[in-house]
């Protein structure tokens, strides 16, 4: 038991160990919920609900009415769960803390300015979410969920993400890549 407690309190697991846990979550998701995992879908449901509150006419379209209906959904609950899963993980290793600019490598890559980090995260968020829409899902809903069932879509998405991700990193890091 003390071994287990010690493992849970560890801040960082081996990626293999954490991967086994995620694999088990994948099995539970398919067997018990007969659904898949996902994250980007939940943002569509929430954005639809917010949009309908602010500009009902604009957001009264096929997408937010039928394709990804605005409001509470399985995907939104999953997203809320993921948030608190992060909280639980941080609590277990006593690293839960409200903070900004907590990554040393970020400062080395982009500099210490907070406005720059916030701007890049905002722009990055838009790119990532829009791309997930085109691809049919994100790392969770397409790569992990599709890959664990051997859907070709997942591996195409993975190839695209790694290819452009590596090129982008080369540009950002330049000689330091």
């Amino acid at each position, binding site marked *: 038991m003390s071994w287990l407690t010690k493992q849970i309190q560890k801040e960082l697991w081996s990626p293999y160990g954490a991967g086994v846990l995620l694999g088990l*979550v994948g099995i539970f998701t398919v067997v018990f919920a007969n659904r898949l995992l996902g994250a980007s879908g939940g*943002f569509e449901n929430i954005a639809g609900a917010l949009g309908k509150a602010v500009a009902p006419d604009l957001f009264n379209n096929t*997408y937010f009415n039928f394709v990804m209906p605005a409001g509470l959904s399985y995907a939104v609950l999953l997203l809320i769960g993921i948030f608190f899963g992060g909280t639980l993980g941080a609590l277990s290793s006593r690293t839960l803390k409200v903070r900004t600019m907590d990554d040393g490598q970020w400062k080395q890559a982009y500099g210490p300015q907070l406005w720059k980090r916030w701007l890049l995260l905002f722009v990055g968020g838009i790119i990532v979410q829009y791309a997930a829409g085109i691809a049919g899902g994100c790392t969770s809903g397409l790569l992990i969920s599709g890959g664990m069932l051997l859907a070709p879509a997942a591996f195409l998405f993975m190839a695209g993400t790694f290819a452009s991700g590596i090129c982008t990193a080369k540009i950002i890091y330049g000689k330091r890549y």
Partner: protein
Amino acid sequence: MNEYILALVLGVMFGFALNKAGLTRYSTIAGQFRLTDMAVLKFIMTALVVTMIGVYPLRLLGVITFPTVPSTYIVGNLVGGLIFGVGMSLAGFCPGTMTAGAGEGKLDYLVPGMLGFLTGAALFGLTYDKVFPPISKLLNYGSVVIPDLWNINALLAVFVMALITLVLFYLIDRMGWQRQQKKLD
């Protein structure tokens, strides 16, 4: 209602795994794209193989049916992935890791990150009619899995996938496929 509680529990376990794997950190994601830290690849491939070993035999035995599998439309999956990688490499997060990271107390994720995702979601929903149907029509194979598409034995496909993954891990851990990080300053 039960489905919602189940979603919440599954989400918590998912977020917990992301936290423990260190995927909520910029340095882990950036390290993957610089090929100096292979945690993302190891984490994802391990999960995929564990799940497929669990669910494919159950499907063959007729105990479960698969939920709707993500659709394969080659151009869209690939182009979407290419754009996705730019954003993920630039910011160091994806929708799942941003959400778990926000839960850890990262204000950078909770405020501009979350706003970015919601803005992107609104933009996609508002332009969906013009963008999505044309691209998803190209080379569309529908909701399909490799064993059914190529008509190969499902257990063989799982076995081959597990083997490829093990070889990949061997190459990374023992054959030096992970690059040394250059000094940053």
